[in-house]
């Protein structure tokens, strides 16, 4: 499935792949986890907050489990050093003493792995500002391009299989023209990617999520 969305300053592309249906019977939980490498995550916390809050506003059949609470409950098995990087590693993790029991206890059935970030890829222009006794102001023009690339993978912990994946690629140009007063016209690529991914994830966890 391919969705193209245009706004004044932002272009976004969302790709969705479904590998299996989600089982929405019972009281299942889903947790969104940022992929970590070398002790940290590339994905901005604002993106994770946006994704969590966007999904929380949707009529999902599953509960959203807080990321930090999940990491603490399963400590240390989802830290950057220990988290499974592929589905093949999942069975060995689930066989560790107490891990499956803890996952069952907190009621999390699905993990949505989130990776990616927003970066400034180009820019230019200039602006100068001055302040004097009679007032102040700025003059000039600054612009920059931002690219937001994110990827999510949905795992079913119960069956140790992949349910699907959603990726977003948003880009846009921001401008700040200034004639006395700077007027920022910001391309919200991260927000566009967040909304696009959340909308597609809803398709996995809402009432009409059948394949």
């Amino acid at each position: 499935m391919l969705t193209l969305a245009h706004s004044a300053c932002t272009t976004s592309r969302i790709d969705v792949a479904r590998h299996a249906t989600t089982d929405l019977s019972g009281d299942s939980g889903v947790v969104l986890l940022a992929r970590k490498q070398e002790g940290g995550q590339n994905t901005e916390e604002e993106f994770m907050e946006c994704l969590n809050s966007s999904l929380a506003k949707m009529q999902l059949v599953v509960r959203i489990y807080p990321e930090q609470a999940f990491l603490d409950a399963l400590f240390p098995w989802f830290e950057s050093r220990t988290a499974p990087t592929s589905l093949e590693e999942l069975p060995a993790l689930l066989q560790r003493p107490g891990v499956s029991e803890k996952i069952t206890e907190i009621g999390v059935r699905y993990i949505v792995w989130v990776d990616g970030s927003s970066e400034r890829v180009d820019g230019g222009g200039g602006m100068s500002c001055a302040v004097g006794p009679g007032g102040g102001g700025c003059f000039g023009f600054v612009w920059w391009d931002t690219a937001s690339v994110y990827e999510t993978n949905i795992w079913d912990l119960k069956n140790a299989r992949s349910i699907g994946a959603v990726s977003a690629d948003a880009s846009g140009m921001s401008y700040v023209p200034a004639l006395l007063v700077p007027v920022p016209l910001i391309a919200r690529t991260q927000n566009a990617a967040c909304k696009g991914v959340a909308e597609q994830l809803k398709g996995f966890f809402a009432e009409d999520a059948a394949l």
Partner: protein
Amino acid sequence: MRDTKGPPSAIRVLALCALIPAAVACSTALRVDSGFPRPVVASLPIDAGVYYDDTLREYVFERQADAKSLAWKIEIGPAHVRLFDQLFHSLFENLVHLDGLAAGNTGKSVGVVIKPSIDEYALHAPSGTSSAFYEVEIRYRLAFHSPGGEFIKHWSYTGRGRSRSTLFGSDEPVQKATVAAMRDAAAWLVIELTKHTDFHTLLQAQQNENENGKDNHDS
């Protein structure tokens, strides 16, 4: 070539300093106050003693300001005592806190005495790494002693953590990077200790066979 979002870190440092009166040095004091969860592990059937010396309890990282970075004073000793307590209480069936390396003098029965310490704490600011992240590396040394206090062996390992810089304020990302490094190191320790359910026997064998006790195990 891609740049990370936001202004360069050097500019941020200068901007922050500009906001502070010239008479005050540009420095940040930080106390790592995070709590740590109990690990999900099966306890090893060992009665262990743990000794935290004052160097660990009061460990403070201090660095003077330079052209690229603020001055830092980061208090991490108490947080490490909390972390090691959480780990060892879960990893060992019984844990006894000791006032020294020799448990035999206290009348407390333990199979092994553990003394954790911090060899080095390193902080890398975004301005020094040309990245958008504060990076922290903590090198640890975990020494194992017999109940009588004789050194058996030690493990050296490193925890790494990083956190994205923010436009204003560097204490929060440094705090997060430090906690991430501590959790990373804890993960390594849990993996290594739970690899060997006969850990105590191995230690005793090593003590008997290697009088010098110089066999090291590094991450």
